């Protein structure tokens, strides 16, 4: 089977209201606690106000991460991943269409999934490629796959970013435990720290499907064990950030079934 290239995480940046600095992110990454709540929107002081005004909270968080000095953005391709994007904007557009029969041109112009990285590229006067992905619960897997495909294609560095914000009030019943508004960007480069692997013959302990997908069989673990293992398999974008920041983490399941995983080589076993 053709394999994905080995890679390393290089620079990173992240924004959430209750996370003041990189140290706060690092210590969060070492633990298992959820991201703390916060209401404040990202300031994005580095962006010209005339462009910044077009972004909603999720977009502002993403822009803050892209502008962060720690990321040192230098014209790399950007892979922008968001489950909901700026859904508050889409909802407002639909409501105004229903109530008044017309929509705001300004809001409409921003109502595409790649609008936020596009706004950043306009501000940067950059023509670097942008890919915009949306996915439900395998967002991190989709983003990593795209990033590694670009590295395999010869790109020397790629920015993989994720952002999302809680759904607007009207859509809250559809929420299933989304985190507070956050965004982060990680730079992936060819390297020898990590690899995406597929378990062709996964052991039950490492590859457990959600309980509803399991047919009765004497070979499968007890329901209790399934639930415990499934709850450990967290393929969310924030779990990927934890993996990137905490080098003691050795494996990250990227699918509910945990058949696709990121692995980090121990320093002594690295190829180079």
């Amino acid at each position, binding site marked *: 089977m053709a394999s994905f290239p080995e890679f390393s995480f290089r620079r990173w940046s992240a924004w959430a209201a209750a996370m003041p600095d990189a140290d706060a992110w690092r210590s969060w990454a070492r633990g298992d606690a959820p991201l703390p709540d916060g209401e404040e929107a990202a300031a994005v002081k580095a962006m010209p*106000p*005339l462009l910044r*005004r*077009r972004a909603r909270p999720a977009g502002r968080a993403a822009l803050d991460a892209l502008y962060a000095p720690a990321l040192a953005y230098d014209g790399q391709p950007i892979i922008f991943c968001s489950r909901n994007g700026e859904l508050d904007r889409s909802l407002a557009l639909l409501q105004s269409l229903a109530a008044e029969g*017309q929509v*705001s*041109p*300004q809001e409409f*112009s921003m109502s595409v999934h790649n609008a936020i990285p596009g706004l950043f590229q306009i501000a940067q006067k950059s023509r670097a490629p942008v890919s915009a992905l949306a996915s439900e619960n395998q967002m991190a897997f989709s983003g990593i796959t795209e990033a590694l495909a670009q590295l395999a294609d010869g790109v020397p560095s790629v920015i993989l970013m994720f952002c999302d914000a809680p759904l607007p009030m009207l859509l809250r019943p559809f929420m299933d435990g989304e985190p507070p508004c956050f965004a982060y960007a990680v730079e992936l480069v060819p390297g020898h720290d990590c690899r995406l692997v597929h378990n062709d013959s996964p052991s039950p302990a490492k590859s457990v499907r959600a309980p509803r997908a399991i047919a009765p069989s004497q070979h499968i673990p007890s329901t209790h064990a399934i639930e415990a293992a499934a709850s450990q398999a967290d393929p969310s974008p924030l779990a990927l950030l934890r993996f990137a920041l905490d080098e003691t983490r050795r494996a990250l399941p990227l699918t509910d079934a945990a058949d696709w995983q990121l692995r980090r080589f121990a320093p002594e076993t690295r190829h180079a």
Partner: protein
Amino acid sequence: MTPELIDELKTLIIETLNLEDVAVADIETDAPLFNDGLGLDSIDALELGVALHKRYGLTLSPEAEETRQHFASVRHLADYVAASRSR
């Protein structure tokens, strides 16, 4: 055309276009609204067109040369609104 209308239009521009950190006093009455002056773009022009329609019942044609002149500055816009408003 009155100073009140001038300020009203400046407020409309700020609110309609989400101009952060811009106050009525920051907008020069005779400065260009687009490009070099306030720095607005073509999407803002469309947005302002919708707002002027809602507030004053004006219908601006995106293609017409007069529209370009009406949008030249807040003063030009105020002259036009004062002369042509239907509400």
